């Protein structure tokens, strides 16, 4: 009995019905040509599996796709329609937005942001989280990815109830170089997040020199570089916190 190549292929793939399977098995024992062709199909399966192994990345925390997925946490919205989220706001426009946001009173928590020297600086809970919280630890805000820029600054992408953004460590504190309204909101109704977080992650990738920090590198930076150093003392009074 002869079999066409489609049947022998299906045999190698385990896709034949039981009766035809039995027939092919019998033919393999009696017909060297059938055995040879089945062996070739089986060997090709093995070669394909070896040529395309599963693509696992060792450091899941530094994986931008994992971060993107995590940052798109289903957002809870109190209403059915959510206005499209603002696109990237330039630093120049941020102060005005901040004022408007505070006036509205829901989008921005004033204790998380302050302005200084023409920049927006993280303060309060956001500043503490930026300095101390490891990436992907639970909390609000959450830290998504840490990285170094081409100019050597340490930056972190964060997502919180009030604010999402990218902050970079500067001598004066954590400068918010990108922000948008928070993605992690609580409510009973689940709703799809916008694509803003992927924009943030894309922006981070543009700023990034090399790979995101590993957990160990992040820990190292946290202990040595991130904690705001006390400015040189100008009086005998020691500041309580700096």
């Amino acid at each position, binding site marked *: 009995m002869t079999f066409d190549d489609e049947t022998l292929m299906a045999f190698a793939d385990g896709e034949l019905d039981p009766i035809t399977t039995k027939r092919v098995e019998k033919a393999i024992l009696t017909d060297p040509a059938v055995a040879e062709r089945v062996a070739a199909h089986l060997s090709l399966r093995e070669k394909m599996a070896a040529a395309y192994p599963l693509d*696992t990345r060792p450091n899941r925390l530094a994986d931008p796709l994992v971060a993107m997925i995590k940052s798109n946490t289903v957002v809870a919205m109190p209403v059915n329609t959510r206005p499209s989220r603002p696109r990237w706001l330039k630093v120049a426009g941020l102060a005005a937005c901040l004022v408007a946001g505070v006036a509205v009173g829901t989008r921005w928590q004033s204790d998380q942001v302050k302005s200084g020297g023409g920049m927006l600086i993280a303060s309060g809970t956001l500043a503490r989280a930026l300095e101390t919280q490891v990436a992907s630890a639970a909390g609000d805000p959450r830290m998504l990815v840490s990285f170094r820029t081409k100019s050597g600054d340490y930056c972190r992408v964060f997502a919180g109830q009030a604010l999402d953004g990218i902050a970079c460590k500067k001598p004066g504190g954590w400068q918010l170089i990108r922000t948008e309204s928070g993605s992690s909101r609580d409510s009973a109704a689940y709703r799809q997040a916008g694509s803003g977080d*992927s924009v943030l992650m894309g922006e981070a990738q543009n700023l990034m020199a090399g790979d995101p920090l590993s957990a160990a590198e992040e820990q190292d930076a946290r202990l040595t570089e991130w904690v705001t150093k006390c400015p040189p003392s100008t009086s005998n009074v020691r500041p309580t916190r700096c």
Partner: protein
Amino acid sequence: MTQFEDELVALLPQLRRFARSLSRNAADADDLCQVTVEKALNGRGQWQSGTRMDSWMYRIMRNAWIDTARARSRAAQTFVGEEAGMSVGDRGDAAIEARVELTNVEAAMRQLPDEQREAVALVLVEGLAYKDAAAVLDIPMGTLTSRLVRGRQALLAGLGEAA
């Protein structure tokens, strides 16, 4: 994280592999994964909990690939890929032979017409059953098996093992 995100993160190794078997180079594969995950997050409302997410994701990736990568891949095909020069200077030791072997498989894959390559990728690389692969590609089973058998014959011939 929700179940949706957990499942999506768990699928990333397979999605990256599928992207690599569809694309002609690593950069295209990375771009394809990025676009696919974005589409999945934006379209998560269309995913029904309890159904197979892998098939859903393969379908999104395959459509994204058709949308964005084919034109670029065709353009790239007119140039000699880097793999053509990779076996030059082969000293014949085992490690190099293993690498050349993998390169041959990938090179043979890249010679396949798109329709055959995606069928081969889903069945031989991703290990989908014929009916699931046919569903991902939205084609009848007979069409799938015919593309698959032609793809396999071409691969076997390309690898010097004509069946």
